[in-house]
């Protein structure tokens, strides 16, 4: 608690130093104001003049940061908030920041986005030591439809998932770090299809993994589909780890289609279904547990209105983000379902 108070005080002081300089200099030279309070956006009177904080559990430049920054002006508009502040709190594979949002005051003034799939995996195996119950948080919705994929090198020997699955020698599967959702996704898929593999996971984040993969390392990468888009020349998407085919990659089979083709059934097939449930959770926005219902409704409404705003859709498209709104109720249900199926993974999570 003391830390929190200290945190706040010092952050305010330092920001004041830097902010004062920046604001003084920059005010008045902006063509279209972003910090001006938008009018006519509606929202509840509670937010008027207040600052909404969006915490991002990863550093600047990644997908979670991108979504927060694209959404920020629209949340401000539709909440009628005085300003929106984005705070990057990277660390612990995203769990440090996610925990900070979880434990933030439930006054509706702090929200954040999180790797909900990663959170669910962590809640299933308690690997990190963070004990968060993602059933309890106040979900706002999911902005994206950006399914997880497995890619191979475009110049490599594996052009299709069939070829990869038929590999005689051990393949080297890149993933960010042990226990991360992309790591677990690859492990479960390769175990389910009995592909001989070894995990190579020592990257600080998906961009480091992407850099290694682009320079020709490893056999496969386990990333989200938007991650691979910027290096589509050197990568070949062979599998979509999602329950349904992805419109942007119509020719790439889903893991379920491949499982049926390979005659996988019973528990293993169920586990793969469970995996797609986890991985489809995507970049999810949430508020801490216990936000008063009127404010939560205001947040959810503002989130939905942002998603429907043509200007937002244009901005997200321009930034190369894959949109696909999922409502808070659907998201809550999906998280609960994913958590309830944790036991199915069992041995499939083992690495030799």
């Amino acid at each position: 608690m003391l830390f929190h108070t200290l945190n706040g005080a010092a952050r305010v002081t330092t920001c004041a130093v830097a902010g004062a300089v920046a604001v003084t200099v920059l005010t008045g030279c902006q063509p279209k104001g972003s910090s001006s309070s938008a009018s006519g956006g509606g929202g509840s009177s509670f937010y008027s003049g207040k600052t909404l904080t969006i915490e991002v559990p990863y550093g600047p430049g990644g997908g979670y940061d991108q979504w927060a920054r694209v959404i920020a002006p629209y949340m401000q508009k539709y909440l009628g908030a005085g300003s929106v502040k984005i705070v990057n709190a990277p660390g612990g594979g995203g769990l440090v920041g996610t925990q900070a949002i979880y434990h933030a005051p439930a006054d509706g003034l702090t929200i954040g986005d999180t790797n909900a799939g990663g959170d669910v995996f962590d809640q299933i195996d308690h690997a990190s030591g963070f004990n968060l119950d993602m059933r309890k948080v106040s979900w706002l919705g999911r902005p994206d439809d950006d399914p997880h994929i497995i890619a191979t090198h475009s110049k490599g020997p594996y052009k299709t998932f069939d070829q990869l699955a038929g590999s005689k020698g051990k393949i080297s599967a890149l993933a960010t770090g042990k226990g991360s959702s992309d790591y677990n996704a690859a492990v479960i898929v390769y175990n389910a299809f009995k592909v001989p593999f070894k995990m190579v996971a020592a990257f600080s984040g998906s961009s480091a993994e992407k850099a290694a993969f682009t320079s020709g390392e490893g056999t496969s990468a386990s990333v989200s589909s938007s991650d691979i888009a910027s290096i589509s020349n050197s990568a070949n998407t062979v599998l979509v780890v999602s329950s349904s085919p992805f419109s942007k990659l119509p020719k790439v089979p889903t893991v379920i289609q491949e499982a049926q083709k390979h005659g996988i059934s019973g528990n293993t097939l169920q586990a793969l279904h469970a995996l797609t449930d986890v991985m489809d959770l995507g970049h999810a926005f949430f508020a801490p547990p216990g936000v008063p219902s009127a404010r939560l409704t205001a947040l959810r409404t503002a989130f939905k209105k942002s998603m429907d705003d043509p200007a937002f859709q244009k901005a997200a498209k321009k930034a190369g983000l894959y949109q696909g709104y999922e409502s808070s109720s659907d998201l809550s249900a999906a998280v609960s379902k994913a958590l309830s199926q944790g036991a199915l993974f069992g041995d499939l999570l083992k690495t030799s």
Partner: protein
Amino acid sequence: MIHGLLSGLSGLLDPYTLLLLLLGTLVGTLVGAIPGLGGAVLLTLLLPFIYGMPIVPALALLLAAHTGIYFSGSVTAILFNTPGAPESAATTFDGYAMTRRGQPARALGISATATTIGGWVGVLLLAVLIPFMSKLATLFHASEYLALAVLAIVLIGQMRAGSVTKGLLSGALGLMASFVGFDPITGVQRFTGGQQSLYDGINITAAALGLFALSEMIRIYGTGRRSLSESGGGAIRKGGTPGNRVVLGVRDVLDHPWLTIRSAILGTALGIVPGIGGIAANFISYGQAMKTSKHPERFGQGTPEGIIAPESSSISKEAGALLPTVALGVPGGVGMAVLLSGFTILGIVPGPAMLEDHVDAVWAMALVIGVGSLLASLTGLGLAPFLARLAKVPGRTLVPFVVALGFLGVFAASDEAAQVAVMVAFGVAGYLMTRFGYSLPAAMIGFILGKVVENNLYLVSQLQGWGSLHRPITDILLAITLLSLFGPLLRRGLRLVSPRRAGRAAPAGSAPPVVDVDDDEAGAEPASRTSKAGDKR
């Protein structure tokens, strides 16, 4: 290519863009002087302002601020041994030593000039390399990362240490400190003592400020020195016009053109390597300058070469870091990661397509780095005589301010009170290490590159194995490492075998020690030389 350059230039010459470029430089230069606010923090604070801005002006604002940060980070490094950004730590070695010798204005002059020239060399190189950028950024594999990191630690380990052994030990200490926190290979927490604030490891700003700034403040307070540069203020007064001193610094750089250009090229090349380059470039640049210098013994005592090298690569490495950022969407450093955030807000998707869709923005960014470094340096040169007077402030008055700024900076960078405690621990450790002849630069570079060494050692063992020895770049880096470790031994052996060569070298070697340690290479006029001799304690 010419078309892209022209459209970038015309975008930049727009008055609104120029205004933002100027503002960015000013904000960067002013705020970058506050330790901990350099690097990514200020840029993140600027991001909200670019919503709704056209692309080129917005990027001009961000990159100009980014450039300004690195210049002013060096200013505090030179004056107070307090690196504004962790990268500026390499400038403390000789920059602060020169301040202690009473020549802060000269050191600032060197810094400003080398930064600008280095920045432009970087921009020129960038111009040549832009067409090949996606290929270049992927040239490095795990084995090259590993070899480069080990080379850097070995090179720096031989700096400012009582002995090579103590230097390498210091590097090992730094490596060990870097292992605190989440281990991506096994997925467990190491050496955190259950403290969640340490789960993400020791903050780099806390380490840099602790090792350099705080340890020095402890020393000053302990010895009760009257000012950072006892004679510095006097020299400025005695010398009449302080501008003379700054000019001397400018001349220092012009007298070492090859070193300046070489360091800038090295900086650019290292900047291109994502993840390692940016942050280690200035250290490696310093190391190569020392290794190739005729007077390596002067390094750490305030030799101009020791400031020229890291400063020359300081901005050029950022020019290099633009390549992977733009070409692959893989940030070359922390500042570049924030730039990627900016891309999102502006609706730019990095990748090979960016060269077609936003070629003017790419060129404008390159030019902003050059123009920004020039503007920052001009501001710095103008302010240098006044800034240099800060070094005259009595030590005991200054210490609380620097310490408070350091605490604030660490807090701003990490948002964790525990990291401030870490900074204090590093400060005490740094003080003790200096006293007993261990090397702070080596510990710092070990810390910075620890994760690189660990992760890539693992990747090499998993992916490449001994096959990595078939890679030419790896082999070259390995050879340089071995040479720099065993070179002196080899030379001694050769001297034993052919004593005549050693005999011939002796008469030539006997001359330099008589010459003043200071500045024969600066070619200073007799008048300034006498005043300098007077400065010496």
